[in-house]
């Protein structure tokens, strides 16, 4: 319902010649892609290649070292920190984001993700996988067309992986965009993939090009 309202403009996410660095080290450079409505991209790469750095740059939280990111339509991020107050019961922690987002009843997402029986449990007692699912419920509640998912399947059990995959598939089928950084294989139709190692910039290589 909220989704269709924000999907009136065709969502798009474009990266043009992105380079990111961590400290003095260039992680990758020359990375470009364009995602239109209904497309999904699987971002792969070994630990430390800069998947999270790229996602934070795409989200606009940090400025890339070089290149441009353009987005049409609002964007949501799910990373390893679901931004839920650890002392509060899950229901109240999620209620804060519902008030911020002005969304009425995300109970659909709660039941699909099996969160209903966890609403009274303080967030600090939840497992990694349960927190992940709660973060995803908050993301779904926002109804934004562009999803940036950083390791959405880590810590999830087999059943939850299937549910989350279905949710991502549904989001894409409804015209959304998803960019998923994951070490797992994803059973999503029409998924393109982008290997970050292809854009890695060893210092020697970079100097010889220059």
């Amino acid at each position: 319902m909220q989704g269709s309202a924000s999907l009136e403009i065709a969502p798009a996410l474009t990266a043009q010649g992105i380079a990111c660095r961590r400290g003095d080290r260039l992680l990758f450079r020359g990375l470009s892609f364009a995602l239109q409505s209904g497309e999904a991209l699987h971002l792969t790469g070994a630990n430390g290649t800069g998947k999270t750095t790229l996602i934070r740059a795409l989200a606009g939280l940090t400025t890339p070292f070089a290149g441009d990111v353009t987005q049409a339509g609002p964007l949501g991020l799910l990373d390893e920190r679901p931004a839920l107050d650890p002392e509060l019961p899950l229901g109240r922690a999620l209620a804060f984001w519902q008030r911020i987002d002005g969304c009425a009843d995300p109970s659909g997402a709660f039941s699909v993700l099996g969160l209903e029986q966890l609403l009274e449990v303080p967030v600090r007692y939840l497992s990694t996988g349960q927190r992940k699912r709660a973060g995803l419920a908050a993301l779904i509640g926002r109804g934004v067309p562009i999803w940036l998912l950083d390791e959405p399947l880590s810590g999830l059990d087999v059943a939850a992986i299937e549910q989350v995959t279905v949710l991502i598939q549904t989001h894409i089928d409804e015209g959304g965009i998803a960019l998923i950084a994951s070490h797992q294989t994803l059973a999503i139709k029409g998924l393109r993939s982008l290997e970050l190692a292809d854009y890695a910039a060893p210092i020697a290589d970079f100097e010889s090009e220059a």
Partner: protein
Amino acid sequence: MITALLRRDLAKFFPFAGGGAALPTVFFVAVAMLYPFAVGPDAALLGRTGGGVVWIAALLAAILPLEKLVAEDIELGTFDQLRLRGVAEEAMMAVRLLAHWLSFGPPLVLAAFPAAALLNLDGPSLHLLLIGLLVGTPGLAAIGLMIAALTSSLRAGAALSGLLLVPLALPILIFGAGALARQDAASLGFVAAISLLLVAIAPFAAGAAIRAAREV
């Protein structure tokens, strides 16, 4: 959206309302209680020096909540998620400044009554103390917020913030306690002016600091 933010921040920091701690107020009264034991029960001496002690206690009480003030929400990712929803860092910090002040400013003003009784402060001194705390604590809250935001990405941030707050709070202390020593309400105008300036720049300085903390 701002009311939702303020509600969350108040629930987080306000004493007795949910998860908040009453520690600054308890600390403040404890100092006022211990001082007569340390210097002896000389009523005249207590009356003369008590006001200064109350100000020092207020300043130190303002340091106590700094550890939780900003760093926790950076770690949780709350500020990132709010940014993605189009909330400016300056707005987040302005709301937090208000919540932080409400959580320790008014409680300290109330706690000044028992503190004044314990230190044998007379009526006019209590009057100056109450007004001074009321106009001075927003400035202390603003300094605290800026320091908490600047040190949020450091490992030893909590210890450092205490050390950093003390010199920056000196002007407020000098004019606030000075008003008591000279029985002169005019110095409280300076306290108010310093507070106003600090409150005006704190959301921008703290907002820039949490943006910079993302780039690390």
